[in-house]
């Protein structure tokens, strides 16, 4: 094995050791040991991501493992969000009231499931073939559904059940598409489905189109693209805040990467216009469905969930357009969305402690009643809205410009209008949440605020650095690596 392959192995094994540690560690040391394991896992994953991005032309293209710039970005995002979620989890666990599991074992099961979810999540962008990627995605469903329903409340049970059933059925449809591809290629087992060989497979174009549509429709159910997004607002709003951050900022783009790789692998057979057009279609529909909900007064986490629908639509547009501008926009958007969205979900813990009615209603004037929390909510929502100098403003401009660059002016124009409408909705929510009229009367101390304030101090310069990087990125070797794909 090469050093990179060893590093991949380490990245996948460390969180599994975390699962074992969750089972074996004495209760008094549980939080400390688990956050320590999270730091180790993140260190290994960030090293791998850095290596993949610093040398974008030096790829690993194995049967079971790939390391490339696109995977590097997603691994880096999963590492950052994972470790941050682990660090805020003890605060969440100390505040929880009930659980799906027996009280004495609940914390241990939370950590074991968290690390199991993290392990399979890290495997998704590193999977060297479509079959293995599908297995990893399906495995994320089982682990994350338990975390979604972790509180055991009726609403969490409903959200977890919907998530489990809808995404499992969707992934069943995706697997049908994968089997059709393997069959149409004349069999050949796993070698047929590797990212390096699939672009060169001899496929009947008609079968390939049907298989591709089934594959994307199935993955769409997991990514949360409209119109198969029904589970997304429920699961994101009812899951524990650290898990919501992992679901939105890490899981969705990781699965989207598999959709994108499938598009790149099948484009030689079915054509770039057709394969990209399906992604653009999902992107526009997702934006159109998300915008009306962004205009409504929503509970904080539900608002963030609908924002996820919007942003996954934006990323779909970017990968559907292709080209240097759009793909540079995608790279910036994935990272910027992860930072801003994770901060927003982490801020939900002190927000719900401060104003309990925020679990079911829109909130107002938090900047007045709890200024530090107001700043965190404002940074998150401002960045997600695309308020300059947010990197998401630059990435959305790049993606729309990318649509014009590749000759899709109508789609780019429609996207620009929908993005402007989405911006107005989120800007209104931003004003209302931070400097609007305070609504709730029943206010308490914002427990866990210190960790969120520290994260805000870290996230703000990272977001600004990302905005600067966006200006340099379109001409970089990283974007050339993204365009080249794995074929």
């Amino acid at each position, binding site marked *: 094995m090469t050093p990179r392959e060893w590093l991949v192995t380490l990245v996948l094994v460390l969180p599994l050791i975390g699962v074992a540690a969750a089972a074996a560690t004495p209760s008094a040391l549980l939080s400390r040991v688990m956050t320590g394991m999270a730091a180790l896992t993140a260190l290994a994953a960030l090293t791998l991501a850095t290596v993949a991005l610093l040398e974008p032309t030096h790829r690993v293209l194995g049967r079971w493992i790939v390391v490339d710039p696109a995977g590097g970005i997603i691994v880096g995002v999963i590492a950052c969000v994972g470790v941050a979620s682990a660090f805020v989890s003890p605060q969440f666990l100390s505040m929880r009231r009930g659980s*799906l599991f027996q009280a004495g074992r609940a914390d241990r099961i939370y950590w074991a499931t968290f690390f199991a979810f993290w392990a399979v999540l890290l495997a998704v962008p590193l999977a060297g073939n479509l*079959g*293995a990627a599908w*297995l990893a995605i*399906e*495995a994320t*469903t*089982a682990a994350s*559904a*338990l975390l979604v*329903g972790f509180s*055991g409340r*009726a*609403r969490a*049970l*409903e*959200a*977890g*059940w*919907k998530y*489990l*059933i809808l995404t*499992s*059925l969707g992934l*069943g*449809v995706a*697997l*049908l598409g994968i*089997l*059709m591809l*393997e*069959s*149409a*290629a*004349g*069999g*050949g*087992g*796993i070698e047929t*489905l590797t990212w390096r060989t699939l672009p060169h497979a001899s496929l*009947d174009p*008609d*079968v390939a189109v*049907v*298989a591709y549509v089934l594959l994307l429709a199935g993955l769409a159910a997991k990514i949360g693209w409209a119109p198969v997004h029904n589970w997304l*607002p*429920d699961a994101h*709003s*009812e899951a524990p805040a650290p898990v919501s951050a992992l679901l939105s900022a890490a899981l969705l783009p990781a699965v989207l990467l598999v959709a994108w790789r499938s598009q790149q692998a099948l484009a030689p057979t079915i054509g770039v216009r057709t394969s990209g057009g399906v992604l653009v279609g999902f992107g526009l529909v997702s934006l159109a469905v998300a915008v009306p*909900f962004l205009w*409504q007064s*929503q509970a904080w986490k*539900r608002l963030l969930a609908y924002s996820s629908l919007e942003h996954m639509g934006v990323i779909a547009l970017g990968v559907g357009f292709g080209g240097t501008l759009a793909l540079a926009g995608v790279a910036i958007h994935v990272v910027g969305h992860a930072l801003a969205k994770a901060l927003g979900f982490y801020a939900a813990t002190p927000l719900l402690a401060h104003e309990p009615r925020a679990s079911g209603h829109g909130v107002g004037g938090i900047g007045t009643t709890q200024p530090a929390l107001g700043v965190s909510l404002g940074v998150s929502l401002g960045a997600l809205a695309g308020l300059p100098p947010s990197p998401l403003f630059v990435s959305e401009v790049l993606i729309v410009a990318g649509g014009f660059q590749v000759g899709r002016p109508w789609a780019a124009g429609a996207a620009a209008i929908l993005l402007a409408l989405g911006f107005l909705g989120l800007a209104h929510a931003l004003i209302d949440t931070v400097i609007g009229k305070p609504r709730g009367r029943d206010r308490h101390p914002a427990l866990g605020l210190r960790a969120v304030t520290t994260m805000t101090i870290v996230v703000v310069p990272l977001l600004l650095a990302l905005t600067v990087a966006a200006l340099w990125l379109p001409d970089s070797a990283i974007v050339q690596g993204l365009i080249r794909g794995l074929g």
Partner: protein
Amino acid sequence: MSGIAWTLVALAIGVIVVRRRSIAVALVTAQAFVLAGAALTEGTSADDVVAATALGVRGVVLAALFLFLVRRTRETRPVPVGVAPLARAAAAVTLALTLIWLVPPFGLDTHEAEQATLSLVALGLVTAAMRRATLFQVLGIVLVENGLALAALSLPGEPSLAIEIGVAVDLLLVALVAGVFHERIFAEFGAGDTAALRSLRDS
């Protein structure tokens, strides 16, 4: 393979129309054994034997899990029927025929295997969409996976054993988690009825 394929479809139609959970569990278990038998009798290599064993073990473990859940969550009366059995069967057959009409031949060993695969996926989707009982929705997922197992057995060339075993393990995990939810939903609402799960709605 033709007889096996249509036996699987007939058993799946049974799952759509029957009222009792235990009968539906028996039907999907029978499907698993039919698939395992087909893998054994038509297989030519050691990998086929392993695939057959994996299918058989999967079927036994799922049956044990589902029957355990049925016993633990005894219903005083069955979950009310949302859509009449004949209407469910008609919807499933319509979706199956539409899929068969839309999807071109994609290279499985026989045309019947392709049609049965598409039919089983359609029947599974309709079962999950139209049956209100939580356990039946999970059985819908199992029907889809049984259809995909049929396709995997009918692929040209050697199957990818690692993927087949991985799919079986993933399905067991999903069923296990669904079992945890089913029990808790039953405890919370007094029935495994998804009609009770309707508090999270946006206008």
